[in-house]
């Protein structure tokens, strides 16, 4: 039975698409047949982050409207095996996402994939609601900042009340917290919320902490999911996140400031 995972946040710009791309890539790397769907109709981005923008012919809305079949619209990822991307339409708007249409596409995908990752748009309107409605699990991406945390809280409330699982009285959507753009030294100084602060407010299990890293921007621009950047902190953190999702018990890295070496300490006077 396939698992549908929504990557959501409420707030924009916190790293949903970056997380969707790396998470889906990580699952596929580990041998799971994975599809990732861009629900941000009208603001298509996932294809850029995954470097397949020039191979988009048909999109999610075409499939919903019966103008193309799934096999025509799914783009095979060129970085890893087992990974397919269903891009959003850039020319339509979110009203084109009908509940029946989305359900039909997801049911079709369930036949041939083990994991279906839904990259949600920001906000709490139709696009976001459709992305989370059919989810079995949810990754709530949050930055260590009060407005982002509040928006995540809002999304958690919607998951608990307006998802299909909630409406049908099934077991609730399993919630995971992804804390991205985390800078331990700034959290220590009190410039940003700490991991503990965010966990205390949201009260859901922490799946991963992604450190703030220039590599994320570089890899986005290069169209390579950051999880594939060997040696980068952010890439390693996404790797851990995927392993944890699959059941491995790994300690959280990148949540304390890096220790200064002897020479650095000498010269910074600290």
């Amino acid at each position, binding site marked *: 039975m396939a698992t549908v995972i929504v990557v959501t946040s409420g707030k924009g710009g916190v790293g949903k698409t970056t997380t969707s791309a790396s998470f889906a890539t990580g699952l596929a790397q580990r041998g799971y047949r994975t599809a990732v769907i861009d629900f941000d109709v009208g603001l298509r981005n996932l294809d850029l982050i995954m470097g397949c923008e020039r191979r988009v012919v048909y999109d999610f809305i075409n499939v919903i409207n019966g103008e193309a079949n799934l096999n025509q619209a799914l783009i095979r990822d060129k970085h890893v095996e087992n990974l397919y991307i269903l891009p959003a339409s850039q020319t339509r708007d979110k009203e084109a996402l009908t509940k029946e249409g989305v359900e039909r596409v997801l049911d079709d995908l369930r036949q041939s994939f083990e994991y279906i990752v839904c990259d949600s748009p920001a906000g*709490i309107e139709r696009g976001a609601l459709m992305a989370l409605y059919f989810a079995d699990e949810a990754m709530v991406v949050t930055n260590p900042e009060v407005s982002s945390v*509040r928006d995540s*809280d*809002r999304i*958690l*409330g*919607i998951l*608990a009340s307006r998802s299909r699982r909630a409406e049908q009285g099934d077991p609730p959507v399993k919630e995971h917290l992804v804390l991205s753009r985390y800078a331990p030294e700034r959290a220590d100084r009190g410039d940003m919320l700490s991991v503990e602060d965010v966990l205390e*407010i949201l*009260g859901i299990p922490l799946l991963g902490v992604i450190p703030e890293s220039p590599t994320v921007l570089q890899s986005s621009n290069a169209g390579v999911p950051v999880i594939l950047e060997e040696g980068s902190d952010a890439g390693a953190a996404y790797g851990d996140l995927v392993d944890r999702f699959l059941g491995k018990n790994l300690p959280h890295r990148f949540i304390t400031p890096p220790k200064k070496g002897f020479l650095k300490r000498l010269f910074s006077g600290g």
Partner: protein
Amino acid sequence: MLLSSPRFTGENRPPFELKGSLFTLTVLHLFQLDRAAIERHLTDKVKQAPSFFNDTPVVIDLDALAEPRDGVDSVDFQGLYQTLRQYGMAPVGIRHGSPELQARARLAGLPVLPDNRSASAAKKSEPTEPPSPHSRVIHHPVRSGQQIYVADGDLIVLGAVSAGAEVIADGNIHIYGVLRGRALAGVKGDVEAWIFCQSLEAELISIAGRYRISEQIDSAGQGKAMQIHLVDDRLVIEALAH
């Protein structure tokens, strides 16, 4: 403690102190003013229980009194008082009756006690109600943007109430977690409603329309287990009683 405080020692001690207290009063429902008839009936009563009326405070209820044939001016409260006193009763005042009758009673030195029928009826309907069947227990955290309202009952939340969430009840609100959002108890005007929470970090608290926003909540209570209720129409926020 009060007596040992300097204000009440030595020469500064005031001549008296007022305190509220409750007494059981016998109410004498008067049906007619015929003094002879009253005396006969009193004699009978006293025969049955000779010392029963020794200094028994009574309130004379005029509600069932037939309109005196000779007009209100003929009513002799002074005489009635003496008769009752003779048989051991101690009239402390009257209640009910027409404004004219009440004025006459006052002239005779009998104060008019307040009509407490409506008040007692209202009181009865509140606390004697069994724990409301409409009370609701919420087993999950109340997230930002969610609103939960319980009509005619209490709301119990077994988790946190997030900033931007609202919990509302006609009755009391109990939060077994952090209250970061808004809590409004007694929204239909029940001034007896309370709010309890394990940690007070609320955006707003309100009881029966009296509210306070977070800026107006004493920082000493912030983040602690607190209870909130109304005293004389003012919100009182205090440490949760254990």
